[in-house]
């Protein structure tokens, strides 16, 4: 398995390089520049600003320099926040996004997988209908509706949680619920569907015949088989959760890296855009690799070749 992982890791590098090169040129193609404001700047000043960031060099030279710096872990300087490097900006925001994403993920797994199991085991009962109806609502309810509803209820009516901000675990609850719910809804439907496929499978019947307890059958035999599609979904989902959500982080004023996806592009903050793209790509590629590994662990029919 170690060889498999190593080989796959090496395979990631060319993919990453292609992503970086394409993004590097695409963001530069956008009209406008980071230093453009409605109030004009004298050309002499503009020239100095460009030189400071190396934007006065030809694009291929800039790309090579960027790749060279990247190899040393240097993501460059931000133009929007000129007193910070992109490394600092990401290091500043990433812990918040990570905490929020992890909390949302736990909530999604707990609620989604739990509801999926109940729905499958108690198929066609009020439990099943209730959970699946709720999941349908959860999928259709965008975060920018759910978030404000939760704020209205918990922060502005019951006064039990802060409406926004960051700094304590109480600040994490509402954004995590908002962010996790839609994933929980997907997970519930996926888990239920894949569990139903195995509920009448031979190995489950065998387990019953051996006299195993119902919880043991559900958790050990059915869930393991039923989790395969869930894992496929979880890979990209975790990558998404960990690099942040534009909407949820804006609604709850979470100081994470989510909003940079949009803001950095609008500000033509070239290096910040690139930093976020690199981070996101690395996460996505690694999570996909982990999904493949998890397949091998969960499904005895798959071997690492």
């Amino acid at each position, binding site marked *: 398995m170690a060889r498999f992982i190593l080989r796959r890791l090496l395979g990631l590098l060319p993919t990453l390089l292609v992503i970086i090169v394409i993004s590097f040129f695409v963001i530069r193609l*956008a*009209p*406008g*520049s980071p230093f*453009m*404001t*409605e*109030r*004009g*700047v*004298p*050309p*002499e*000043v*503009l*020239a*100095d*600003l460009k030189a*400071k960031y190396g934007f*006065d060099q030809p694009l291929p030279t800039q790309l090579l320099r960027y790749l060279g710096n990247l190899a040393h872990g240097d993501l460059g300087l931000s133009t*929007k*926040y*000129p*007193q*910070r490097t992109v490394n*600092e*900006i990401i290091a*500043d*925001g990433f812990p918040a996004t990570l905490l929020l994403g992890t909390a949302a993920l736990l909530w999604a797994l707990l609620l989604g997988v739990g509801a999926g199991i109940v729905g499958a085991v108690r198929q066609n009962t*009020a439990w099943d209908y*209730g959970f699946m109806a709720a999941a349908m609502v959860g999928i259709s309810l965008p975060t920018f509706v759910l978030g*404000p*509803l939760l*704020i*209205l*209820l918990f*922060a*502005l*009516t019951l*006064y039990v949680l*802060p*409406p*926004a*901000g*960051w700094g304590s675990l109480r600040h994490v609850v509402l954004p995590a619920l908002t962010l996790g719910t839609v994933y929980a809804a997907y997970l519930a439907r996926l888990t239920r569907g894949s569990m139903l496929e195995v509920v009448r499978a031979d190995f489950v019947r065998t387990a019953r015949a051996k006299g195993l307890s119902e919880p043991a059958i559900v958790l050990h035999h059915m869930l393991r088989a039923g989790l395969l599609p869930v894992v496929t979904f979880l890979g990209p989902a975790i990558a998404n959760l960990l690099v942040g959500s534009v909407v949820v982080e*804006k*609604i*709850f*004023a979470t*100081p994470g890296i989510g*909003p940079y996806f949009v803001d950095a592009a*609008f*500000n*033509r903050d070239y290096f910040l855009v690139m930093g976020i793209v690199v981070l996101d790509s690395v996460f996505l590629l690694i999570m996909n690799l982990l999904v493949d590994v998890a397949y091998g662990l969960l499904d005895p029919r798959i071997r690492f070749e």
Partner: protein
Amino acid sequence: MTRRFRSLIWATLASCWLLGVATDCSRGAHGYYGTTRPKHGPDEIWTNLSTEPEYIDPGKCSDSAGGFVIVNLFAGLVQPHPVTLAPMPDLAERWTVSPDGRRYEFHLRASTWSDGVALTAHDFEYSWKRVLDPATASKYATFLYPLRYAEMFQRRAILVRGASETDAPALRARVETLSPIEALTPAPELGGMFVLLGGDEEGRAARRAQVIHALDGLTLGASQLHAAQTDASVVGVHAVSDDTLVVELETPVPYFLYLLSYYTAMPVPRHVIERLAAAGENTDLWTRPDHIVTNGAYMLHEWKFRQYAWLHKNPSYWDAARVRVPRIRLAMVDSYNTTLNLYEAGELDSIGPNASLPAEFMDALSRYRDFRRAPALVTYFYWFNTHVAPVNDARVRRALSLAVDRQSIVEHITRSGQIPTADLVPDQVGGYRGPHSPLFDPEAARALLREAGYGPGHPFPELTLTYNTSEGHKQIAEAVQQMWKTNLGVDVTLENQEWKVYLKTMQTGAFQLARMGWVGDYPDPNTFLELLTAHNGNNHSGWHDAHYDELLKQANASVDAAKRMVMLREVERYMLAALPVLPMYVYTRSELVKPYLMGHALNYENRYLCKYWWIDRRWYDGVPSTRMPDGFPPEPARASAEERH
């Protein structure tokens, strides 16, 4: 239906009711928006910056969030009155102005930086020259362009000593073999001329070196030339002693003191910046909490990137006795919904100067007692590109302007009490009264269009109106589109562009009509009228009129303030006859401020001076029946600290 299903339905109904109650009971207590009991102690005020500032370095800042922080951390020579913004003494105790209005002598009071180091006139000389130094790349250096030779220094002009005005043609011919010239200006006090190079910015540095090399030592007529890049020593600011600063201006600038109350003119601690430089560190980092030293009402205690900042009272501020609240917390929440939620819950005591509330909220919010509104020094207008047909005809431009029902736009679309106007300069700015052009006259508009030759045989071509993507601009553009169709039969295509793309479009002049909101920098009509001069880089109309430039120059040279305002009105009238812009309305600024937050003035320039803030403690126990006086200082008597020779 099973019993379980019935209970599910009941549960759903119950949660809907709960949400309904939530909407009702959280608002409207005593007619205020949200809680009126201060959530934090009387020693703290929490407000919102809305965004992480780009810079809190006075010399480099160009964004309003940074400006908010700076005016509370630093003190300049003069400070604005919190309500009227009239300049009052700050570090300068008094000053004298020469009769021609070109020389100021400021006398500084004894004061120190927050680390105890003495603050002298030399700090000001250093700070202003730092702003103008092209290596600093300050985006707002133009604020200091009134200083003598400031622009020449910042723009790296070549100073050719030994050349006189009679040598100009020969000098021009010699330089033009090497590089295009933007301007050739005499500098008689320096015994030479300035050569400002033009052409594309890319190769300008190399060409400058070539020109200097070619001119230095050259003999022109009778004199030998010495050419070099202009250095800081010629700039018109000099500390003649620790407490006296002499400032020389190119031409008299009637609003000069207003400029000095702006953050760009505030001092920076030379000793801290030079210490960082000596240690080989990035000098831009001097504004980080671990290095920063300030001289204003507050010090920077803590800064959490994109989260919040804490300002603590600066005991060494010369006027510290006036500062009433020891701690100010500045959040950086950019969503207006989130900001309103935080305000409602009492987490914010005011929504802050940069929270822009959407027009749809205005009708509802303006009913609350803690809602405040003030006119802002901003005009909303459309640029005409006067190089492009059919708007290259002044009659067409005037027709289009007269066919816009501005009253209807402010009543039904913007809905925040904006003042409809067909003038560019907001009325009452610094005592100004504008020409009050007619707002709406579709009959006259149609007549003008006929006069311009358009009619049944010669239909008016379709226009394109460009604006930067925003719901508000779109609604206005659609209304204008409808008005032109109805009143003139003119068809308009609307085109929206993302902000940076839009700026590029403006710069390259690739538009017919384009929207703009111009923020006045100081309360004087010149800040708007100057926009239309030929050399102004922000004049996107392509309208260049030498007579207009001359009229404006004459008006500004007038030392009699009242007479100058009358002259400026004529200047504006002259411009409005050609109408390179289509003014729409004057902005207002709306804010929510908790009733217990006192000393919080809304002024038309969005200056938030925390040193006047305090909390009316009676609100901790309930709603008091009376309002206390804010305790603002009296409006300074005109030129109280100023003597004229």
